[in-house]
Every structure is written in C-alpha cells, then in structure tokens.
C-alpha cells in the first residue's frame, strides 16, 4: 500500500521536477545577461532547442496514459463480448497493471434496465468478468483485480431511451 502511494507520488513528482529544472536554467541565463550590464540585442542570433528523443517505450507509455483516461468500455445488448474498438484501450490498462503490480483495479459491470434486476446482476458480472479475463490473458495478476456487478442499479444515464441504454451497458475500471 505504501509502496503504491510512493509510486503514485513519484509519477506526479517526476514531471514537476523536470519542468522546474528547465525553468531554473532559463532564469539563470537571464540573470547572467543582466549582471553583465550590457543590453544584448538580438543581433541576428536565433537559438534553437533540441527535440527530446523519446524511446519507443516512452511514446507507448504516453499514448497509453492518454488511453487510460478512458476507463469505460461499452457492450451490445445482452452481450458480454469485448468489441474490437475497445481492445486497444483495455491493452493500455493491462500494460499499466503489468508495469505496476501493486496497483489494484475494481472492474464494475453494468447493464441497461431491460430484463429483471437480478438477471441483470448476473449479466453485469459476466461483462466485468470478460474484462477481467482479457486482462488476465495479458498476464495481469488475479490479485490486482476485483469484480463487482451493479446490474441495472447504477445507470450512467438515468433515462429510459435506447441512447441511455447504450451508455449504461458498460464496464468501468476504477483504480
């Protein structure tokens, strides 16, 4: 638990350190110019900065961090199959969990309101378990994941239209 918090703190702290390092450099150079007492005109000099070369790993990590912001995947009516459109998103979550074995995720399964509440609890669990299985197949440890089905009890959209139903048939990854 503490290690987990430390990791999270570092994730936030590292970019902040990097930013402050950059800004302090630029401040120093301005001060340097001022202490000389001479006004340096921009005499045709242009400065350029080198692009940070990211490793493929870093590029992937950034992209996946972006994907992970989306923690909801949607299902067809009375169906618990994970649609191809959401596979990339789920893989991003899976890789994150693989790289952070101390991070735990709660997978919530939800349905629309058609059918009966208790049948929908069973269907919601099937959806959450489909997501669990997907992540497990990527190598994510069972101990990192818990599954809960809310059936039709916690709709994302409380309306009673087809559009609302589509928003409610979902699995949500909660870290």
């Amino acid at each position, binding site marked *: 638990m503490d290690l987990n918090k430390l990791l999270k703190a570092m994730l936030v702290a590292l970019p902040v350190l990097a930013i402050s390092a950059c800004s302090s450099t630029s401040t120093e150079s301005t001060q340097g110019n001022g202490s000389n007492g001479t006004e340096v005109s921009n005499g045709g000099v242009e400065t350029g900065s080198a692009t940070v070369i990211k490793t493929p790993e870093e590029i992937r990590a950034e992209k996946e961090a972006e994907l992970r912001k989306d923690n909801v995947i949607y299902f067809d009516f009375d169906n618990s199959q994970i649609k191809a459109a959401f596979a990339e998103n789920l893989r991003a979550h899976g890789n994150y969990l693989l790289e952070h074995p101390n991070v735990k995720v709660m997978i919530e399964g939800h349905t629309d309101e058609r059918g009966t*509440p*208790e049948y929908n609890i069973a269907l919601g669990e*099937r959806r959450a378990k489909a997501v669990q299985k997907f992540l497990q197949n990527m190598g994510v440890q069972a101990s990192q994941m818990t599954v*809960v089905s809310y059936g039709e*009890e916690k709709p994302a959209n409380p309306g*009673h239209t087809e559009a609302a139903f589509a928003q409610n048939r979902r699995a949500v990854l909660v870290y």
Partner: protein
Amino acid sequence: MRTFGKWLFVVAILITSPARAALDIVITEGVDAARPIAIMPFVWEGQGQMPQQLSEVVMSDLKRSGTFSPLNVLSLPQQGLSDVADFKGRDWSGVDSEALLVGHVKPYGNDQYQVKFQLIDLIKSQLPQQGATPSPQSLLLDQSEVLISASQFRSYAHMISNRVYEKLTGIKGAFLTRIAYIVVDRSQDKPYHLMIADYDGYNETMLVKSDEPLMSPVWSPNGRKLAYVTFENRKSQIVIQDIFTQQRQVVTNYPGINGAPAWSPDGKTLAITLSKDGQPDIYLLDIATKHLRRLTNHYSIDTEPSWFPDGKSIVFTSERGGRPQIYQMNIQSGKVRRLTFDGEWNLGGSVTPDGKAIVFVNRTNNRFHIARMDLDTRFLQILTSTTLDESPSIAPNGTMVIYGTVYQGKQVLAAVSMDGRFKARLPAGQGEVKSPSWSPFL
C-alpha cells in the same frame, strides 16, 4: 474488516417515522367489469367529528381489488342507514348490487370507539316473498361489533374490507397487507431507500437509506422481516432486517454475487444466488446455522429462485437453453424441467399461492411484459401493456400482481389483476420506485 468499517457509516437505519405517502393509486383499466356494491357512509353517533370515515377506506379497498365497483352514495335509495332493522327492502328493489354495507361509530370515552358493521344480502331481500316476510336478521351476510382506538380506524377498515371481500367472493381479502419497495432519488445524497407501506400506499416508512444500491426486498413468511441485497460495502451482501426492532444481520458476504433472496414457506431457509464458485448458481442458506447447500451447478446463469408453496421445489431463471427461461427444480431429487417455451425470454418467475401457475417477465418482440402461465395447461397469458415491466410480486391471496414499470420516463409501480382485466398505476412522488414485494397476510 477495515473496508467494512469504512463503509458502515454510509448506511443509516432510520427510526420508523411515517413519511408522506408517495403512492396514490390510479385505476387505468377494468372498472366496467367489476361487480357493483352498495356502501353506506358509517353513521357517527357522537359529538363533533368522527376520527375517520371507515366506509371511505372500505370503498377504496374494494374498488382497488378490481372485483367491485362501489355505487355512488347519493344514488342509494335510503340515506343515513346504520342498522338492518331500519332497512326498507322494497326501496332497494331497483338497486343493481348484490350487497349493502352499513355501520355506525359511537364514542365510548377515553379514545375508545364502538364500531359496528352489517353486510346486508340485497339479492335475498329482493327474492319473491313466500309466506311470512324474512326477519331483518336473516338478511345479514356478516356483522361485527368491536371497540377500537382512533389510531386503529384505518386497519379496522381494512379488516372490514377483508370480511366483505371474503363473504362475497369466497377468496381471502388482502387489504391488511404491506408492500416493500426501493425508491431511488438521485437528488438526495443518500439516493437509495428501502421503504415499506400499507398495500394502498398509506403509512409509508423508510427502513434504510444508503449511498449505494439496495435491491430485491422480500418478506419473511411471518411478515416481520425483510431480506434484501445491499451494496453498502461496495459489494453485494444479503441482509435480513427486522422491520420492528430494526435489528439487521448480514447473512451472506461471499465473493461475487450475493443476490435474489427468497424465503422458504417455513421461513427457515433462504434460496439465494451466489457466484462464488464461478458462475451464478442457486444455493439454499439455512438462516440459523448459515449452512449452505448448492442446488444448481451449470456454467450458464442460474438465478431468481422462487418457492412453490409446498416448499418442495423452486422455479428459477436459467440460460442453460441459450436464452433466459424458467425452470423448475425438485429440491430433494435435484430433477430440473423447463417450464416456459413461448417468447424470446421468460425470467423473474414466482409461483402463485395455490401453486398452479407462475407469474414472470416475458420478452416478445423485444417488449417486456408481465405474463402468467397455467402450469397444467401451459397456457401463457400476457397480463400487462405497460413499458419495460419487471419485478412482479403476487398478492398473498393470488388475485393481483404488483410490478415495476416505466411511465412518462420514470420508474413507477403498477398493479394488474391475475386475469389481466384490472390495471392500476401507483404514481411516485420523488424519485424512481422499483422492486415491489407484496407481504404475506398480516
């Protein structure tokens, strides 16, 4: 254990305080088919105001039963009648009603009132007379005299309704019963409420208020306790709560689904759904010992158990045939047979009190309605014409079904008679109302 403590505070069990009645029954269909009945306002023989007009409660009860249609009081040939001794048979010859209810209320001091009612046989009074005219007493179908306090008026009126209903139909009245249901009011910080009320919506009381969903309330056979599902600890658990003492006990807390509780007729066992062993299956939980016995073991979904009145078998919903359908299992032999074949889905079944039929949710052409199937003939009848119907619960006398539906974009409760002819809606006040459960006879 830590998480349990953490989430315990989100549930507040409330001191039973009557709330505003959220239910107001609107009869939408079936009044024409009802039998006319004459009900005379009970005569007040005291000073000032009568605490409550009992006959109005009786009129509402009989009207809501779908079986009777009380006649307009002003159209009755005699007014202010309170005893058969003053009954003038000849005046009533043109009245299209099989019976007449009269009564009086007399103060007896110290919050005590004498209430007397008489049910007069109008058919017998109109038979051609042979020889001597019948004595007034011989026209009585039923009568009773009691001493009650003002607070007992409403329940005593339901008692009178029960007696009138049983005398005239031969079926026990279900007017002294309660319903439990869930209200979801998303405008409140604890949106999920477990409520109980008299069957007609009066005396509504909140039993539990929670941040997280509450589901599937169901009455114990003695009407004292409710079993229901709570998510207060961010997982499902089955709880038994005494409605009088508020004593509350978590009876299952297994990993995965803990759901669909159903009391056995003897009140000792809960049939429940658990998914701890992989997929949702039906188990029997001995409430006293917590001993668990697995009933079904199938890779598909098995859920929604409901008992036959003899306690020897259950019906349940299973996807073993590919789609949800209703099956019956003999508890001792474990033998399973499929009951429903019509329609795309059939689920959420319960057995009528006589054990001869099941009531359930039927999906046909993607529409969800409440249906009834006779177990001998396998004749399936769709009872409702409302939208997204679910959670049917049968009155203890088997005459009426209460269920959840969607009306004007809101979840509300509705009722339908077992023959599908009488239909009524119980509009909600605040929030969505769902998962009704009709109590046993109280």
